[in-house]
């Protein structure tokens, strides 16, 4: 086993552990902390895939902004004080659906014939990525910024409430 594989299995175990913690924790704040673990482990997976830029973005946006936002929402909606707020009665069906999806997709991955190289990573240069993003994908990039602006304005208006309330 090469050192790359050892690192991969460690990071993968951390990711799965974090994910399990998110969906199974009995305390919602623990759930959010497990989410941070899972997101940072996914950033490590991105580094293993030689996508350093996305790993940095992942740590900044998810590890920083998104989890803090979720903790704020937990505080404001008082999820902790709600008795029985965690799981509904549909738990076994949820587990069944998740297991069915997992079985199907693993079967598909194992049985599929992949075109091209499936053993070797081709490292993509950082500057090439930026070049491509601002040349070939400039219009979607601008639309994404518009989406962010509209979503932020909408969020502010929704959270502020109506006048005189």
């Amino acid at each position, binding site marked *: 086993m090469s050192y790359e594989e050892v690192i*991969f299995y460690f990071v993968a175990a951390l990711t799965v552990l974090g994910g399990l913690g998110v969906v199974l924790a009995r305390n919602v704040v623990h*759930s959010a902390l497990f989410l941070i673990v899972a997101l940072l482990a*996914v950033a490590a*997976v991105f580094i293993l895939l030689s996508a350093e830029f996305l790993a940095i973005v992942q740590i900044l946006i*998810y590890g920083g902004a998104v989890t803090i*936002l979720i903790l704020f929402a937990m505080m404001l909606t*008082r999820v902790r004080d709600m008795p029985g707020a965690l799981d509904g009665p549909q738990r076994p069906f*949820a587990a069944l659906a998740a297991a069915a999806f997992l079985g199907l997709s693993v079967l598909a991955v194992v049985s599929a014939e992949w075109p091209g190289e499936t053993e070797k990573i*081709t490292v993509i240069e950082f500057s090439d990525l930026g070049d491509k993003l601002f040349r070939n*994908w400039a219009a979607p990039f601008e639309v994404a910024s518009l989406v962010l602006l509209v979503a932020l304005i909408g969020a502010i208006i929704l959270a502020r409430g109506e006048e005189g309330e």
Partner: protein
Amino acid sequence: MIPIQHFLVLSSILFSLGIYGVLARRSAVLILMSIELMLQAVSINFIAFAVYLYPKEFSGLIFAIFVITIAAAEVGLALAIVLRIFRNKATANVDEVDVLKW
């Protein structure tokens, strides 16, 4: 090197954990966290396909960037909606928000 299947199986596991969380949890905030897990699984898939199978095209990496962007917008908007629901109904549990149910 690690074969691509390892990454795909990891992302499958992460995605099914997200499915379980979305279906089993009752609080809207916890459901949102499970959706984040599913988005992460999709990002892993996109990047794995990009660097293993089609390194000449960058579509996978660029789509992963867009996934992260849209996820940020989605979290902001969804949490504002959850806050609004909480203010109106004094609960953030999705099965108690049933005004549209006959």
